């Protein structure tokens, strides 16, 4: 008798091979048989009319904090995601000395838009080392986690405040190498670094004070383990991105490591720039380097209120200074002051075409409910004012808890995005799962891949899309025994209806510690998600077994340098 059998489904095994009809049997955490299975099982899943695939792997997330209060990384698991890579963009929650906790919280708040109250009320800080953090998140883990360690955090650990001021000495670099080795031994899947991010003081994050010598030394340690280097390049500029990927290519070749950079967006106005980047990616791969660009599936939609700072206003200094550093009372006073208001209106004119298109999506007062779903242009017309002024007025009337949506701001050229996602050297990812929770939903990108690019646009086959987010990802990240539906592999499995799978509408929910809210999307069409042989989630019963693991494993086996 088997522990679990998934019957009557169509197997898309993650290799890219055509789908075929078969049952899948599981014993313990392993797939033990694929074919016609007549034996009984302790538990069964009827997959008639559905496809059975390896669980999806999301390579770019920031669930580091959420995992401390939610081992399911909700709602990622419900979308079929069975493994997440945390710790991207130079930021991880370990290793971290007690004295640096608030510094890191500040960076997470600024860069990943994680609420301060969520850290304050959702996190019990009882670790310092990477190993202790791993021990913490293992409790109740329902999703697999492949954690990166952040370069900025390692710098803080070794250099303290000097990490934010200067290059490292030879001795400090050697110490950082030792810390990185400890993290890799404890299970880190690689190192992340950033060349763009700013901290809570709007100063460069510690990783940006590292010179090429330091990055090379850390990459040499990654080479000892064959682990990944992830970076955030200056993605807004093609020449800078190409310079960074050349730097990555040299590190990849010298130390025999995989590298990945994210994000890479494609818009109607940067097609040539993206083509140049991809040409360089191809050239570097042809040399033998591994430089994987990560591309997200969803278009850029940003929601905001003035109750919390939004990165949407980063390039508008008068606005950003007020909403980043002002208290709610100060923000409201600034919005009410005629002189200041005049300055805000003048600065907003630079983004003139944006404001009329914004959609008003949330209000608390009864009086403003009638405007929900309308554009600012429509509301402004009704009120006899301008879109920017109505945005300010609504924010004042709602005591800043008025929400606006800017939809389709970029990465929304279907043909170009579809072509990019299909490119054999593009790594589908960059969801940012668990981050920017007050700006947009980072969940459901896999559903959008299947509904939009496979089903609606036919930009790629179902089999190719599954391969991209399962076995390809496992291979890039060196995650063994996962990403394929094969006998002997770990039973991380998604069962879904290929005809109906999609991401749900974006909605906001109050489930963040500290009475916080976030934007999420439910999954549609996903039936069952299995992690490590346990039924982790079903559409019928919700979240169930907690069989997640930390990958690629606590005992890292070194590879030949």
């Amino acid at each position: 008798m088997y522990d679990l059998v998934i019957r009557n489904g169509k197997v898309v095994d993650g290799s890219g091979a055509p789908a075929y009809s078969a049952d899948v049997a599981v014993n313990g955490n392993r797939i033990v048989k694929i074919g016609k299975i007549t034996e009984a099982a302790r538990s069964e899943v009827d997959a008639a009319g559905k496809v059975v695939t390896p669980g999806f792997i999301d390579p770019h997330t920031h669930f580091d904090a959420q995992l401390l209060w939610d081992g399911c990384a909700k709602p990622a698991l419900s979308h079929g995601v069975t493994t997440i890579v945390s710790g991207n963009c130079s930021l991880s929650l370990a290793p971290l000395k007690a004295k640096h906790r608030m510094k890191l919280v500040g960076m997470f708040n600024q860069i990943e838009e994680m609420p301060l109250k969520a850290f304050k009320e959702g996190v019990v800080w009882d670790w310092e080392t990477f190993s202790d953090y791993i021990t913490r998140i293992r409790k109740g883990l329902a999703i697999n986690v492949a954690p990166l360690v952040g370069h900025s955090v390692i710098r803080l650990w070794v250099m303290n405040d000097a990490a934010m001021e200067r290059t490292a000495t030879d001795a400090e670099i050697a110490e950082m190498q030792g810390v990185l080795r400890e993290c890799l031994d404890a299970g880190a899947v690689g190192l992340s670094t950033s060349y763009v991010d700013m901290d809570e003081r709007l100063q460069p994050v510690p990783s940006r004070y590292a010179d090429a010598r330091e990055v090379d030394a850390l990459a040499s340690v990654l080479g000892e383990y064959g682990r990944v280097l992830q970076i955030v390049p200056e993605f807004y500029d093609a020449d800078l991105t190409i310079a960074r990927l050349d730097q990555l290519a040299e590190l990849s070749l010298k130390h025999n490591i995989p590298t990945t950079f994210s994000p890479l967006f494609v818009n109607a106005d940067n097609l040539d720039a993206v083509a140049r980047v991809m040409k360089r990616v191809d050239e570097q791969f042809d040399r033998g380097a591994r430089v994987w660009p990560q591309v997200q599936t969803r278009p850029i939609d940003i929601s905001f209120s003035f109750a919390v700072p939004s990165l949407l206003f980063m390039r508008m200094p008068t606005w950003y200074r007020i909403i980043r550093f002002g208290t709610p009372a100060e923000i409201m006073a600034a919005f009410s002051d005629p002189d200041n208001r005049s300055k805000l209106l003048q600065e907003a004119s630079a983004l003139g075409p944006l404001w009329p298109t914004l959609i008003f999506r949330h209000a608390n007062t009864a009086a403003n409910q009638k405007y929900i779903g309308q554009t600012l242009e429509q509301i402004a017309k009704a009120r006899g004012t301008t879109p920017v002024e109505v945005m300010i007025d609504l924010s004042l009337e709602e005591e800043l808890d008025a929400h606006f949506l800017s939809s389709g701001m970029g990465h929304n050229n279907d043909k170009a995005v579809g072509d990019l996602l299909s490119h054999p050297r593009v790594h589908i990812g960059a969801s940012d799962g668990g981050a920017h929770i007050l700006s947009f939903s980072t969940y459901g990108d896999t559903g959008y891949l299947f509904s939009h690019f496979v089903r609606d646009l036919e930009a790629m086959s179902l089999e190719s899309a599954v391969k991209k987010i399962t076995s390809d990802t496992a291979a890039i990240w060196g995650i063994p025994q996962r990403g394929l539906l094969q006998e002997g592999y770990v039973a991380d499995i998604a069962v879904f209806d290929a005809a109906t799978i999609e991401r749900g509408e974006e909605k906001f929910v109050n489930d963040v510690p500290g009475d916080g809210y976030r934007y999420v999307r439910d999954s549609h069409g996903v039936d069952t998600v299995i992690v490590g042989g346990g039924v982790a989630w079903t559409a019928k019963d919700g979240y169930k077994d907690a069989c997640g693991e930390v990958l690629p494993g606590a005992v890292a086996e070194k590879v030949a340098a």
Partner: protein
Amino acid sequence: MPVDNLSRVRKSILPTEGDTWSIVAKRELPELSLDEALAKLQSWNLHVFMRAAGAMAAPGGGNPILPSDVVFIEPPLAT
């Protein structure tokens, strides 16, 4: 593919310890006067130069070139 077969892209450097605009200008653009080289470098590297005000206020400020910066030493290539 050997490195020589890579297509030409815009030339850049990664700074070494102590690099300032003047040091980079003298090293990378020796054929130009210092003033001319500085002006060119700064116009080619607005991502660094325009950050100067913020960086100057930072601890260790005074040199706006961060150790991790990409610094272009020629203008954008014609496309």
